C-alpha cells in the first residue's frame, strides 16, 4: 500500500506522502512540516512536551504513528491563536507567569486546552493539578500553570455563557 495520509493540520487539509512507516505525528510535524512548537522532550510519553490535539483530544504526539491517523484533525500550538488574538489559555499563561524557559509550554498549553474541553476538572486546583500531571516542567512553574488553567477555565466558561445568552 502507498504510505500516505491525509491530515487536517491547524485547519488546513494536507495530503502527505511518507517514505517510512516509522514516522510519528511528532516527527511529521517537526521534521517534515516545520511545525516545531510541539517539543521532543523524552520521546517516550513521559514528559508531555509533545502534546497536541487529535480530533479535539490531547495526546502525546511522540507515541502516535502518523499512518494510524489518516483523516485526523490535528491542532498544534501554532494553530491555537486566532490571528493576533491569543487563545484564553495562552493569555492566562502570560498573565500568571506560567513558564520560565518555555520548553514545556506548548505542551502545557495544548494539554490545558484538552483538559478544559474534557470538563472534569473545573476550577478545582487539585483536579487541575491531577489533570495536568502528564506535563512536566523542569523549571517548576507548576503554581503559575495551575493558576493559569483555573483562570482560563473560568474565562472560557464566561465567554461560552455570553455567547449562549
Amino acid at each position, binding site marked *: *500500500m502507498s*504510505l500516505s495520509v491525509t491530515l487536517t493540520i491547524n485547519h488546513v487539509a494536507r495530503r502527505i506522502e511518507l517514505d*517510512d*512507516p*516509522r514516522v*510519528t505525528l511528532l516527527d511529521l510535524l517537526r521534521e517534515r512540516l516545520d511545525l516545531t512548537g510541539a517539543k521532543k522532550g523524552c*520521546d*517516550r*510519553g513521559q514528559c*508531555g512536551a509533545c*502534546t497536541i490535539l487529535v480530533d479535539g*483530544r*490531547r*495526546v*502525546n504526539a511522540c*507515541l*502516535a*504513528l502518523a*499512518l*494510524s*491517523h*489518516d483523516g485526523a484533525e490535528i491542532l498544534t500550538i501554532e494553530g491555537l491563536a486566532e490571528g493576533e488574538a491569543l487563545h484564553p489559555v495562552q493569555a492566562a499563561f502570560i498573565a500568571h507567569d506560567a513558564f520560565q524557559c518555555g520548553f514545556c509550554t506548548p505542551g502545557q498549553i495544548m*494539554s490545558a486546552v*484538552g*483538559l478544559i474541553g*474534557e470538563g*472534569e476538572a473545573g476550577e*478545582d486546583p*487539585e*483536579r487541575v*493539578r*491531577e*489533570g*495536568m*500531571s*502528564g*506535563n512536566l516542567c523542569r523549571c517548576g512553574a507548576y503554581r503559575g500553570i495551575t493558576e493559569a488553567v483555573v483562570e482560563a477555565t473560568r474565562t472560557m466558561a464566561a465567554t461560552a455563557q455570553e455567547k449562549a445568552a
Partner: protein
Amino acid sequence: MNRFDYIRPGTVAEAVSAAAVPGSAYLAAGTNLLDLMKIGVARPERLVDLNYLPGLDAIEALPDGGVRIGARVRNADLAQDPGFRRRFPAVAEALLSGASGQLRNMATVGGNLLQRTRCPYFQDTASACNRRAPGSGCDARGGENRLHAVLGWSEACIATHPSDFCVPLVALGAVVEIAGPAGPREVPLADFHLLPGATPERESVLAPGELVTALRLPAEAAGFAAHARYVKLRERTSYAFAVVSAAAALRIEDGRIAAARLALGGVAAKPWRAEAAEAALVGAAPDAAAFQQAAEIALAEARPSGDNAFKIELARRIARRALRLAAAGTPERLPALPASPFAPLSGGLHG
C-alpha cells in the same frame, strides 16, 4: 526503531490472517508498543494496524445486565461513560488513576491487558532478562528490585504486571473475548495472564495471531456498585505505576458482608485475585477485624523476591484501606486524586 512492514486490515478476519505470519504484532494506540520499539525491546517485522477496524469501539449494555467493552475503546472514554462508571465505579477509578490524561485518551482496553512489565531490566537490552530474551538470566534478581513481585514469582522472573485497570476487572470476574486463526474463544481474565514459572516470555494465553476483541463484565459485577473502590500507592502523587494497589468490592446486607471481591496490583506478574480472602469476608461484619484477617489471608503466600519485603506489609495495609473505603460506600464523585491513599478519609489517617 527497527524497520517494519505496515499492514492495514479492514476486518477482524483480515487482521487475524495478517497477524498469523510470524514476526507480526498488532498495533492499537501504540502507547506501549511504540515506546518499546524505540528502545529496541520490541522488534516486530510487521505491524498490523487495528485503528481502521470497525466494530471494536463500543460500550454495549448486554441483555443479561452485563456489559461488553470493545477492545479499541479508549481508557478515557470508558472511565467517563456515565452508565459504565455508575455501575462499575472501581473500574473507572482504576482507569483514572493510571497514566496521564494524554495517555488515557489514546490507550485502549485491549492494549491495557497486554501491556508489558515496567521492570527496568526488561526495558534495558543490555541487561539479562528471561522475559525479553529467554535463557539470558534475570538481572533483577540481586539487582534493584524493591518494586518487584512478592506473589507468584519464579527464579526465572520477578517482574510485575503494571495494569491498574485489570485489578478491579479480575476482582469482578471479567471475561476476555478473543478472535484467532482457530476461531473465537473466551477466557476469564483471571486465567488470561500467566505466572512466569520457567517460561516468563509467555505472558498470556494468547496464541500467535490471536486478537483480543472485547472484554465482558457479568451482571453480578454491577451488584457491588454501592461499595467498590480502588486504592493505589505510588512513589509520587500522580502519573506513576502502582507500588501496590488493591480493588475491593462488597455487597452488604443487614450489616453483614453478603459477597466480597478483592484483588491486588503491583504484586505479581498478573492481576492477583485473593479468593480465599473474599471467602473469609462473607458473613462477617464489615469491620477492621474482618478486613485485617482478609488482608492477612490475601498475603499469606507472599515472600520477598529481593529488597521488597516492605511490599508485603504495604499490600496488607492497602488491601485493608480498600476494603474500609469500599465499606464506607462509593463516593458520589471520585476524589480529585482517584485511588490515592492521600485522598481525605473520614476517621483518621491510617486504615
